[in-house]
């Protein structure tokens, strides 16, 4: 695509982005603003593609458009908020105009669009990546090898966020689900089970009530309702998620492994892998799902451990932390091994972290209904 055409399309999408931003600010309902936020992320993703950033576009598509929208919608389900009050005077917009004019005035010193403010650092990377790293994708080489220590920090941030959420949102002490699952498993006689199906056991509501009262549990049927045990589901969502899940899995594994020779890597692959689990949570709300918090916490930690252990391994082999040249005699092969190992760690952490975050918001939304 020629530069003029891409600039023109960029201008159009930028204008659309401004329009969507104004709509978000002026929207009165929460649902509208979340969907418009997703639309703005979509436009931004197209802008990234026009600005030659396919890695960033993939990450924005997976995380900005899909994951953050689903998390925000799950949050909004259980959130009761007051309506926005109408602003009376426009005087409070004056500081923003002043700030905007200062920023535009400072922007006159910027390089023109397309002249590339990369200067010597990107020249260094473009010239020396082929010799030193031997990996086609400059972004993967910089992310995983030249600035691998930064990426370790970012992975730790995702891990910390997932752990913070599991502490904040009743991750480990959910009395409701453990009690109901215990009572069901101990008192499930054949009268209370109305159908056996390959995807799970559909439990009859009245028999559920009798089973619960027989077991002497204090939880009413309404609370069992809330934990997601009613037999309802959307047939279109069920069929589509089951059909498309293997392809998404294949795509996630492909992006994870081929992140070195094409746009991709651990972050995108982890987000796409997490979307499979989110699809299942969305399509099958009536299934009695096991509590995956423990497994996902372990998986998140294992991913970060793989990343940090690669660095420790290079220290044990005699070099400094995260120096991949110590891993194998051939330098390019050693870099490929190191990049593959840490991308695996990043992918596992991001996937497990995103799944954990969504699961916690999902259970929170069900608990608040």
């Amino acid at each position, binding site marked *: 695509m020629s*530069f003029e055409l*891409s*600039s023109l399309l*960029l*201008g159009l999408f*930028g*204008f659309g982005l*401004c329009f969507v*931003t104004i709509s*978000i*600010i002026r929207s009165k309902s929460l649902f509208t*603003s*979340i969907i418009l*936020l997703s639309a703005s992320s979509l436009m*931004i993703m197209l*802008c*990234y593609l026009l*600005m*030659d*950033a396919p890695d960033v576009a993939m*990450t924005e598509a997976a*995380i*900005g458009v899909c994951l*953050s929208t689903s998390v*925000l919608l799950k*949050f909004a389900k259980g*959130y009761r908020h*007051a309506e*926005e009050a109408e602003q009376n005077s426009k005087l*409070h917009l004056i500081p923003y105009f002043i*700030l*905007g004019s200062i920023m*535009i005035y400072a*922007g006159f010193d910027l390089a*023109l*669009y*397309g*002249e*590339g*403010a*990369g200067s010597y*650092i990107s020249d260094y990377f*473009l010239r020396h990546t*082929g010799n030193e790293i031997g990996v*086609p*994708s*400059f*972004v993967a080489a*910089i*992310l995983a090898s030249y*600035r691998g220590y930064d990426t370790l920090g*970012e992975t730790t*941030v995702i891990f910390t*966020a997932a752990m*913070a*959420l599991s502490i904040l949102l009743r991750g480990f002490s959910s009395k409701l689900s453990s009690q109901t699952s215990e009572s069901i498993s101990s008192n499930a006689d054949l009268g209370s089970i109305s159908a056996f199906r390959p995807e799970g056991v559909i439990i009859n509501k009245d028999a559920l009530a009798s089973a619960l009262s027989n077991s002497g549990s204090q939880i009413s049927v309404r609370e069992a309702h809330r934990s997601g045990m009613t037999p309802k589901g959307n047939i279109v969502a069920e069929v589509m998620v089951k059909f498309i899940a293997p392809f998404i899995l294949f795509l996630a594994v492909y992006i994870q492994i081929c992140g070195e*020779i094409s746009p991709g*890597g651990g*972050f995108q692959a982890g987000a796409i892998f997490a979307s499979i689990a989110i699809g299942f949570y969305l399509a099958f709300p009536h299934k009695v799902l096991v509590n995956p918090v423990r497994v996902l916490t372990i998986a998140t930690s294992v991913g970060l451990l793989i990343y940090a252990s690669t660095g420790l391994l290079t220290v044990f082999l005699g070099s400094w932390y995260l120096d991949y040249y110590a891993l194998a005699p051939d330098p390019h092969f050693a870099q490929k091994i190191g990049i593959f190992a840490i991308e695996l760690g990043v992918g596992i952490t991001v996937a497990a972290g995103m799944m954990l975050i969504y699961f916690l*918001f999902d259970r929170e939304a069900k608990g608040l209904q």
Partner: protein
Amino acid sequence: MINIGHIIYLVAVFVFLGGLYMTLSGKSYIRKIIGLGIFQNSILIFYIAIGKVRGGIMPIDIGPEHSYSSPVPHVLMLTAIVVGFATLCVGLALAIKIERGKNAGS
């Protein structure tokens, strides 16, 4: 010379101000958090825009005769997106706890 691609800088400033306005004068926590997300998006657009090279292609190495767009901003903004999502989730969880504390206290 000035071309129409410069509009992306103005767009970045506009989205920056829009996100800042939502964050500072949003009436509920979720509005502030959405404003923060918009605000972060504007910074990412700006950084990726200053890395673009006229006549360059995407930074995957296919030969020394091509000119590539600068890969350094892509790397930095890639992690910024993921970290932004993580902080968004933590912000939402904190908003849930605050609301629950308000309901329990009153």
